[in-house]
């Protein structure tokens, strides 16, 4: 017998799911609409997807989005993991300034972050002719806001470890590279994978910082959608959005499977 409170909560939860998923479902649904309307569904059609894949601007935006996400993630995971490790290894030195520095990109409003970088890059270009706005500056900006999240994840994982493990590795005369190869990397692997996923989603999810650091030839999908919806919502916009929503669900599924596997793995041990 369920209590009234529990039954009320169940209804509440269903309403919450409707609230959370209705906007996404509507986007997916109307991307298959045969007419250009987001009020009436007239019939199923793949027309908008065909247009999408024959539009060079959209294809290059897709390529830019992927390139930006992958490049910034690779750089940020390496730099961030080093930072997280340094923070843990030298925690006795009380580097409070470093903690502040790491939290700064996290608390800074996106829009201030983006505009700071934009004015900075524009000025650098004018004075020295370097770092003109484009994919390069976007990668730099993305790395800068990804690094703190990676560092904090790695740092948290290291804090959760038994400190004696480090001494054991040292007692067994492991050389630094051996410590890295046979101890740190295996032990940190789940945290590294989590960092990769987090950094990727941070990059794909970002619009504001990309928007302000982009150049004329480095349009990404969110920037394309932004300029397209200024002219009104079309099924084509919904089709692009559907592709992006689909990729997010793939990542969510992967993370759920990874979690399941790591749980069963731990169980077996």
């Amino acid at each position, binding site marked *: 017998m369920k209590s009234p409170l529990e039954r009320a909560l169940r209804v509440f939860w269903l309403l919450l799911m409707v609230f959370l998923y209705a906007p996404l479902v509507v986007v997916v649904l109307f991307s298959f609409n045969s007419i250009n309307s987001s009020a009436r569904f007239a019939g199923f059609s793949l027309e908008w997807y065909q247009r999408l894949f024959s539009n060079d601007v959209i294809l290059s935006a897709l390529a830019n989005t992927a390139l930006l996400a992958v490049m910034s993630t690779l750089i940020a995971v390496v730099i961030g993991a080093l930072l997280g490790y340094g923070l843990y290894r030298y925690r006795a030195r009380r580097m409070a300034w470093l903690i502040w520095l790491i939290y700064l990109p996290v608390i800074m409003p996106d829009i201030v972050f983006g505009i700071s970088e934009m004015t900075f890059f524009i000025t650098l270009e004018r004075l020295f002719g370097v770092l003109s706005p484009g994919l390069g500056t976007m990668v730099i900006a993305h790395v800068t806001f990804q690094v703190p999240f990676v560092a904090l994840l790695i740092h948290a994982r290291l804090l959760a470890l038994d400190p004696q493990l480090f001494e054991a590795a040292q007692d067994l005369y492991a050389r630094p590279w051996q410590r890295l190869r046979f101890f740190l990397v295996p032990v940190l692997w789940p945290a590294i994978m989590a960092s990769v996923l987090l950094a990727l989603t941070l990059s794909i999810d970002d619009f504001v910082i990309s928007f302000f650091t982009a150049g004329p030839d480095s349009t990404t999908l969110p920037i394309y959608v932004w300029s397209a919806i200024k002219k009104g919502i079309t099924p084509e916009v919904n089709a692009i959005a559907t592709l992006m929503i689909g990729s*997010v669900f793939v990542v969510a599924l992967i993370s759920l499977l990874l979690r399941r596997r790591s749980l069963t793995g731990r169980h077996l041990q």
Partner: protein
Amino acid sequence: MTRLRRDSLHLLGTVAPGALCILVFLVAPSIYLMGMAFLSTDATGLPALPLSVQAFRELAGFGFLGWSPGNLYTLLRSLWQTLLATVLVILIAYPAAYYISIRPARWRPVLLLAVVVPSWTNQVIRSVGWMNLFAPGTPISDLAVLLGITEPRMGLFPSQFAVIVGLVYNFLPFMVLPLYAAFERLDHAQVEAARDLFASPLAVFRHAVLPQTLPGLMAGTVLVAIPAFGMYVVTELLGGGKATMIGNLVAQQFAAASNWPLGAAGALIMILATLLGLWVLRRLGRRLGGDREVVI
């Protein structure tokens, strides 16, 4: 090489790339922007010498035509919309987090993921979803017309209502996650004891549940209120001109209106307000939580 020296080199090797990245590409640009707020504008709206506080005077509303309250209203509106959205998020997140925490353990990760996944999609895409739902002629808009909330043949956006919905939609997961973490550690014996003493549901919540979940609530409030105050995308897409916040005001100065020092002054105010907000929330957390450490 001495051990200390080797240690220092090692420290430098691990920490320096990340620290330099943040120093060069975040701290330096923001100091540059802050400095710009104290310059005057040239004919094209770009910053120029001499130093002046002209940008702050303009931000406060003093222009060629005397004083106008527009910018002040924008600042107040930003605070009001942030407050409203945060309160609504708290009201929705509490039952949601509690519900997840009383489900069987193997279902909890899935339910949490169900709350979080929409926030992994791009901000712009999420707003596109609401633009679809709130467009003129959709069932929701028709219902609003029937109820007399909107004019016939109008949609529910652009409006302040749409902005608040968008803000709640964007930041809900940031409140559910820390609250859920707090509920997972909840000492149910305290709740039972309060019930046995015939405390009303409200009293049970006030005296048994709230103090225990306070750290989660404070952490969630920071995670919601800080980015909501700096919101740009939702207000721009769902709000039109009626719900602009300070982020939009700042951005305008670097685009169409082109007055960099004025924009920089606005950005400086945003950073100060953010830091002040963080400080107040920390103080509040300490005061409410007594001697318990409130983690933010």
